[in-house]
């Protein structure tokens, strides 16, 4: 069974540009979570999509947005990039079982110069 996949692996952008990151969940998982891991910090919750809808978002500005497609894959868009957006962006999928364990992709390393 294929795991969570993310693309691209690395992304280099300049300030003010837009970045689009993609995630495909494990087959059968309808929920996708996005996290940001900045250097030296833990995983900060960004967005949660379930069955095509945005269900919850963390404490991030509106220039962080995304969507979930009918096949449950998801996109994260970051507009007007700032230097501090440089981080590892992780996508996780889950079956929403009681324990809440999430299955993570390898991440996209975004560098903003």
């Amino acid at each position, binding site marked *: 069974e294929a795991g*969570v996949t*993310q693309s691209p692996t690395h992304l280099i952008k300049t300030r003010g540009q837009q970045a689009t990151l993609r995630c495909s969940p494990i087959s059968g998982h309808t*929920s996708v*979570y996005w*996290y940001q891991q900045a250097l*030296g*910090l*833990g*995983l*900060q*919750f960004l967005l*949660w999509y*379930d069955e095509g809808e945005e*269900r*919850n978002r963390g404490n991030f500005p509106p220039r962080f947005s995304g969507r979930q497609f009918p096949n449950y894959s998801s996109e994260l868009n970051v507009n007007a990039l700032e230097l501090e957006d440089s981080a590892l962006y*992780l*996508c*996780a999928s*889950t079956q*929403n079982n*009681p*324990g*809440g*364990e*999430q*299955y*993570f*992709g*390898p*991440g996209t390393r975004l560098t903003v110069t």
Partner: protein
Amino acid sequence: DQQVKQNSPSLSVQEGRISILNCDYTNSMFDYFLWYKKYPAEGPTFLISISSIKDKNEDGRFTVFLNKSAKHLSLHIVPSQPGDSAVYFCAASCFKGKNTGGFKTIFGAGTRLFVKA
């Protein structure tokens, strides 16, 4: 406000000995506590979890202990192996309902474990 804290950024242990990773939390509403392991250039992988109604869960070399009164949990790895060298994240989770926020999962900052051969 950090609801989940891992106060040790790193830990070094000799191969074959016990590794003990610690985690503290502040919110009594969490239902589950989870540990994830992360190797460089990979996403975190789920390791073991414990329900808030239990005080111990064991899976092979890995045991998680929960002390609810102290709001403290720990992960014990016995015996430690060089392949265990990774960053370990503690996480606390509660389910708020599908239409009211879903899973709220808060991660700690991680502890880097070095297991020396």
